[in-house]
């Protein structure tokens, strides 16, 4: 069965519930603050997912989020890929002391895989919607 408006509403509701249950209520609030209007349940769900992806890709450190968001807004990489973060190169003395040459001010490792998973969900929803609209079922 293709998905319908009721499914979209249910998915959005359960996603928001899962976010709040995971202690990420402020993330939900930030996303909602970006939503200006509604154009139906499919639009609401996919917009929420897109905003969720954008927020998640910034990581969870509030100060770093703000800095990285601003940096990405006004600068880009050569490939057009968003800037991943900041890499701090340590001095030789510090490298010996902390046993590492550098550290990253960036979203924690693993976040990117989760972002890719949400992109995949978004893509699946869009394909399903397109096929349903085209009457291909």
């Amino acid at each position, binding site marked *: 069965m293709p998905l319908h408006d009721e499914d979209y509403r249910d998915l959005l509701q359960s996603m928001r519930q899962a976010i709040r249950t995971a202690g990420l209520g402020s993330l939900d609030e930030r996303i909602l603050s970006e939503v200006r209007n509604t154009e139906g349940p499919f639009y609401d769900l996919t917009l929420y997912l897109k905003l969720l992806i954008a927020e998640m890709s910034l990581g969870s450190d509030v100060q770093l989020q703000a800095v990285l968001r601003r940096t990405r807004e006004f600068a880009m990489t050569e490939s057009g890929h968003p800037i991943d973060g900041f*890499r701090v190169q340590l001095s030789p003395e*510090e490298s010996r002391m902390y046993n590492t040459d550098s550290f990253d001010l960036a979203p924690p490792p693993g976040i990117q895989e989760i972002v890719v998973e949400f992109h995949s969900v978004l893509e699946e929803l869009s394909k399903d919607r397109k096929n349903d609209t085209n009457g291909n079922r």
Partner: protein
Amino acid sequence: MAAADARALKRRIEAAIRRYAQASSSRAYSLVPNSLTSGKLYEAHVLSLVLERLYQDENFRIVLMNSTFVPLKSSPGPINPAYPHFDLIRRSSKIAELWTDIEFLTLSYDRSGGLATPTPGDYHELDIVVVDPGSTGRPPHRSIWLGVECKNTGYNKDLLRSILGVRRELSLLQDDRPTHFSKWPRQMVPADPPSCLIVYSTDSAVLSYTAPGGVFGIDFFHEPI
């Protein structure tokens, strides 16, 4: 194509959210002391503000070259063109470059002939610089368009004396002349060469030290993070 399965999508979404909550609770940079990370985070904060102004006020397209990570160093050094930096582009042409944690060769070194191997007194560091395109090594004072110092500490008279020394080694005091910028940070500066110099500090006390900056062309900003 098979129809999407609402229950399967719901499970995937919920699992991804749980993984995100777990991943985001860890700090990747917990190996180094907070003083170092907070200082560098402040530099990143100021850098993002500088990028914003260069984009919005100076209409630069800004591209991070040679990396997807913005470089910050805990000890400064010369420019290596193979290292990550920002190109400042206007109408498809590179107009200038922005580097972090760079040492420049001083005006006094230039005045003394600039031929001997520079000693530590012949160069000084700046946290953020905008320089002539194609600069390599330690750029001479005349290649500096903009220097920025970021102070995530209490601001005091020693820091004022330090930035006055940097101003002295960048330019001579002159009547106002046009900078390389149309609007930000300044159109005019009382300096030759006409480099701009800015201090950002988390300490509101920085605003007590602005008077000499008005004469020598140094802009002080209280900028909490």
